[in-house]
């Protein structure tokens, strides 16, 4: 972005103004996320920097909101912090329960979305694939259709798609269904819904990886006597793995951040972190929400770093090393 030597004074002024504008826009992008972090250490229940915080007085900062997070919902939060206190926190604290639910639902929906999505991406990137355009459009549509419509549809479907729990089939499925034999208010229901929402991301990232994939490698493996399965696991998979993993991370984040479907189809037992946040924001927003937000920002930084590393590794593997 160097200025050419023949630039006129006006162009010089514009050049620096342009840089200033860009800095301002970057500030707009990042500042709201960064500002949450110091505010979560506020010693007072305010959402702005207090006098003491501005003068960097240690008294202005505290971990009280993180403590609130841990103790909220516990049976006996004021007991001495011994083993039984921690057991109480692990079993009863509302946010810890929500984190457990989010992780369970996230992992299973990610596995489902990644396995099915990767297989489909392999099929979709073959030149022989029939009806490619329309099928691709259907598979990407969960990302495009407004979430409220998806959630509404799933709400009706899951409350009506029930099996008779006294039949043999129903007894077999009973552990994963609700008491009335339906998908609504069950882990399975939320997992299926989140997998559907994560699938477009897997498809997009894996097909993008496969565009750079040299199909002659598969033919070479086949001509050397490898069967399709060996070819897939020994040749294709190692090369597209970075794309598959970043697709999986996208699917996990989608599930981890999903509120609306969880609000409509999950029961009180499937309280997830976003749902808990949603309740916290709607009822009485307290700086404890900022403490959660801070933890989630740190989590997303870790994810972003992973994805970036994978992307670079993928480019190196495919010989597209950036200059």
């Amino acid at each position, binding site marked *: 972005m160097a200025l050419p030597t023949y630039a006129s004074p006006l162009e010089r002024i514009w050049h620096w103004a342009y840089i200033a504008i860009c800095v301002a826009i970057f500030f707009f992008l990042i500042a709201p996320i960064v500002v949450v972090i110091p505010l979560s250490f506020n010693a007072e229940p305010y959402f702005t920097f207090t006098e003491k915080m501005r003068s960097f007085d240690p008294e202005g900062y505290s971990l009280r909101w993180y403590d609130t997070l841990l103790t909220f919902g516990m049976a006996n939060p004021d007991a001495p912090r011994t083993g039984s206190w921690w057991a109480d926190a692990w079993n009863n604290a509302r946010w810890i329960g929500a984190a457990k639910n989010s992780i369970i639902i996230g992992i299973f929906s990610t596995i489902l979305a990644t396995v099915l999505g990767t297989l489909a991406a392999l099929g979709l990137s073959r030149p022989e694939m029939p009806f490619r355009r329309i*099928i691709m459009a259907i598979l990407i549509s969960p990302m495009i259709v407004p979430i409220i419509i998806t959630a509404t549809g799933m709400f009706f479907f899951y409350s009506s798609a029930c099996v008779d729990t006294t039949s043999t089939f129903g007894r077999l499925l009973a552990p994963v269904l609700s008491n009335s034999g339906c998908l609504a208010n069950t882990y399975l229901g939320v997992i299926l819904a989140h997998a559907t929402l994560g699938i477009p991301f897997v498809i997009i990232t894996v097909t993008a990886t496969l565009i750079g994939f040299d199909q002659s490698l598969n033919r070479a493996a086949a001509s050397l006597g490898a069967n399709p399965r060996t070819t897939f696991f020994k040749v294709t998979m190692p090369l597209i793995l970075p794309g598959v993993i970043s697709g999986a991370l996208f699917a996990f984040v989608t599930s*981890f951040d999903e509120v609306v479907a969880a609000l409509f189809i999950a029961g009180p037992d499937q309280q997830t972190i976003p749902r808990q946040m949603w309740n916290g*924001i709607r009822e009485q927003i307290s700086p404890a929400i900022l403490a959660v937000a801070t933890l*989630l920002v740190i989590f997303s930084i870790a994810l972003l770093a992973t*994805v970036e590393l994978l*992307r670079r590794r993928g480019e190196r593997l495919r010989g597209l090393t950036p200059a």
Partner: protein
Amino acid sequence: MASALDPHAAVVAGASGASPRLTTADGQPLARALARASARARRRAFLLVAPLLLFVVVTFVIPIGQMLHRSIYNDGFAANMPQISAWFAENPSGTQPDEAAFAALAADLKTAADIRTIGIVGTRMNYDVPGTRSLFTSTGRKARAGFEPPFREALIEADEDWGDPTLWRAMRSASTAYTANFYLAAVDRTRDDQNSIVQVPERQQVYVMLFQRTFWLSLVITGLTFLLGFPIAHLLATLPMRKSNLLMILVLLPFWTSLLVRTTAWMVLLQQQGVVNDILVWLGVVGQDGRLKLIYNQVGTIIAMTHILLPFMILPLYSVMRTINPSYVRAARSLGASSWTAFRRVYFPQTLPGLGAGALLVFILAVGYYITPALVGGSSGQLISNMIAMHMTETLNWSMAAALAAILLASVLVLYWIYDRLVGIDNLKLG
């Protein structure tokens, strides 16, 4: 002469000289063998996709289809009031309700009150004629004691509203489960006494205004993301790869951060006692008691949504700008164009594919936004999605929610189709 066993003669010309038929090594016509092989390849490719396609159809397409069915189908009246529905079916529209009609109505009301479905019937009628739910429940209570013939006089004595022709017309239209009334209501229309379609009274007109607001705010947000995204994408595309990769992280971090976190951050920043107002007061831009109201209104929705959707504009713009050859602009400059002209006539037209992709994507996502307007929108920043959610969870008028959802879905699908035509879904990029 090549023998069939000769590996070099996989393809041999047929014996007849006039029209040589190509055959494979085992003597089959090549065309047929090729067709069979490619059919097998197609089948294999499809089989890889089939499990996912089935999954998405079952968990996504069918539920939405079912939901849309609700927008034209509501048997709340027809299923629970069978006798009066049968009377409506036998007598053409415009027939004055006779004694038989009132007898059927009284019998239905008694049955419905006995098996406690009268509330469902009343709720269904309440959608079309506001205020009738209590009419049904109160008359239902009286009906359990039993009405004596003549039923016409008995019912009108119970409540004179039973003689109201508007109610009878509404009951007639509700007596068939299939109805277009919810769509009429979704565009602020209703049927008048002559059964022709008219606008609802002005103070009840909400939906058209909400659709207009949704599209207008989405346009504003798309415009803002363009204004903010274009310089950033340009900067990233022209910097050396190493530097631009570093700066790209500043764009991708918000993209990866939880939506709720970003919305919460804006709620905190934009409050009247929040950081932005504090800074403005400190700078002396506004007075201590002139703090700006930046949240729980349209301003809040626009700021937060612009921030959240900005990466969706930057990423496609950036990937197109990366491919633009800088020598075109240099050539324009060397031919005497000013830097503005070179930008406007040479550089900008080449960015249009990225701009189209980004703008369509941002617009599509903005039209269906729910969470952010619900949290920061107040009452003036609510979009159509919030109205659908309200009908789902508060008024429980599910058919109305479905009709609004159908209209929203149709407009999103049209935009999606345009996106596929212009950009191609394959070119959707995420970071």
